[in-house]
């Protein structure tokens, strides 16, 4: 469902000059698979996902989602994707029902069909009772459910999730994890970025470790263990980042 080839993004940053945020990144994600982009802050995860979501244009390379090219057919790509980030991106002065109606309409749903979808999504996430309360009156957990509902209302085949559980408490993060696993079981193609090891290990079928814009390794947990000789994802991650010796020194010091 997602094919990325030599994707590159160069920014001209004032006082820093030319910055290669993404540098010849390639990977594929299949339907019914959760693919994790694991990397430290500033590694290029968000930029990669923004290109896939057609928010940014690549400097080089191609990305095809559901058969559509992000540069040539951005609007068709947008109909294939649901984008969710830890920031949630909700309109605070609108109610959940108004937000879902807005995105439902943008996705081409109207009348009875839209009404039915809204009612299904609200019921599925248990937020019928807060459907007409303005978002700025909701708790963080309720807001995250609304953000998830936003992606469900259009029910796209591809989900792009940028640190979706970032900053959430454990029970709220659990809601997101359940949503991701359910989506995978429903045959969705999911790419998610994270820097939380447990989240990546628990959720992802395959993981790509990204560092300074480049992918240093891709594979299942078993494949990454075999490649690095490490057991825990944290050790694998540090090894792939070339920070293994630092961790050993720290461990010895402790």
């Amino acid at each position, binding site marked *: 469902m997602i094919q990325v080839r030599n994707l590159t993004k160069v920014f001209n940053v004032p006082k820093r000059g030319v910055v290669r945020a993404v540098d010849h990144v390639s990977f594929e994600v299949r339907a019914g698979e959760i693919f994790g982009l694991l990397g430290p802050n500033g590694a290029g995860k968000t930029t990669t996902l923004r290109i896939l979501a057609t928010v940014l244009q690549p400097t080089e390379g191609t990305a095809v989602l559901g058969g559509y090219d992000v540069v040539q057919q951005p609007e068709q790509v947008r109909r294939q994707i649901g984008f969710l980030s830890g920031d949630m991106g909700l*309109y605070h*002065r609108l109610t959940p029902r108004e937000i879902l109606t807005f995105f439902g309409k943008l996705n081409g749903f109207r009348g009875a069909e839209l009404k039915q979808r809204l009612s299904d999504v609200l019921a599925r996430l248990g937020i019928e009772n807060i459907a007409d309360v303005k978002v700025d009156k909701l708790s963080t957990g309720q807001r995250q459910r609304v953000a998830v509902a936003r992606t469900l209302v259009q029910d796209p085949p591809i989900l792009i999730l940028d640190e979706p559980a970032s900053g959430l408490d454990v029970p709220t993060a659990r809601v997101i994890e359940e949503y991701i696993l359910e989506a995978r079981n429903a045959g969705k193609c999911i790419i998610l970025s994270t820097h939380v090891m447990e989240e990546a290990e628990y959720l992802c079928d395959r993981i790509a470790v990204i560092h300074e814009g480049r992918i240093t390794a891709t594979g299942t947990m078993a494949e990454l263990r075999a490649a690095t000789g490490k057991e825990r994802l944290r050790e694998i991650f540090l090894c792939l980042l070339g920070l293994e010796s630092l961790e050993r020194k720290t461990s010895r010091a402790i």
Partner: protein
Amino acid sequence: MRFDSVSTIYRKEMLDSVRDHRTLLSMVVVPLIALPVLSLFVVKMVTVVERRAGAKAQTIAISGAERLPGLLNALAGAGLKFVPREDLEAAIESKEFAAGVEPVELPDGRKEVRIYADLTRQDSEMAAQRIRAALDQFKETNARIRLREMGVPDEVLTPFTVERVNVAQKKMAGFMWGSVLGYVVVFLMSSGGMYAAIDLTAGEKERRTLEILLSAPAGRSEIILAKILATTTAVFVTAFLTLASLAVSFVYIGRQVAQPMLKALSEGVPLDIGTLGLILLALLPTAVMIASIMVAVALFAKSYKEAVSYLTPVMIAAIFPLIAGLLPGTQLTPALALIPLFNVCQLMKEIFLGDYSRLSLVITLVSNTVYAAAAYYFAVRVFKSESVLFRT
């Protein structure tokens, strides 16, 4: 371009905007409540000050009244009260009296009546005018009595009467209205649209909703068109409400106050649908231009606060063509009709006067439509620029 997407986004933007207190305040509350209240306050102040000045101007200081028999009767006949004082200058400077009068005998035997007044004070000027009128009347009455005694008919003293006729009586209100109102309306239009423009651009960036909107199935041209339409609505609604509320409050004020100038202003206000419709039509391209420029500039900002600091100099820059129009004698020539903001203000004045030229109207509308299109194109370019939308 899919207009159902534009319509969906526009409705969302409007709903979001009208729930924003700052936008609502500048778009509705200021024109609808603050301006009429302010006008009423000014009128009340003017009325109170004039009444006080009038009351104070009733009583004057007088010195040496015995030198001119009949003077006291003449002053009393004009409704003035008088109190004897030796030092008239001191009496006026201490503000004990508004003005003073003193008959003096000149060395050649003629008599002179001196009026003492402080012309920087309204009450003093009013009192001095009353004294002058009373003295003129006194002088004329004396002359008539003497001429009658000499057997000369009254007509000799008054060979003709003078009556001033203002041929622009009806235009005065239109002139006063158009001169000031155009600038008030255009300035408030800018402030009415400012918060909507910021909220829909830098506000979206700050709240992190822009990224989600950009990844939704809507083209960037559709999104920016909807945002500019929403801002234009805010600008236009402000213009409409400002015109309507000022018109209503002026009429109300005219009925309430006795002040001749304000009364004349209110009676001559051209409030017919045709005039207001023509003004709104003239303002439409300007509203689109203002909205597009504000949206484009606010897009450069990363936060609400930053956008306010970017748009404030734009608002100040817009004041210059407005001030140029307030200079006396400025008229809307075909060449001047090419200057944005200035042209629409001048056109409003001419529409209020009822003698606008069709050529000026057409040039103003066409040139403002071209500016609006250029500003819109600029805003679209800015919105499609990654380096602006995701400025680090």
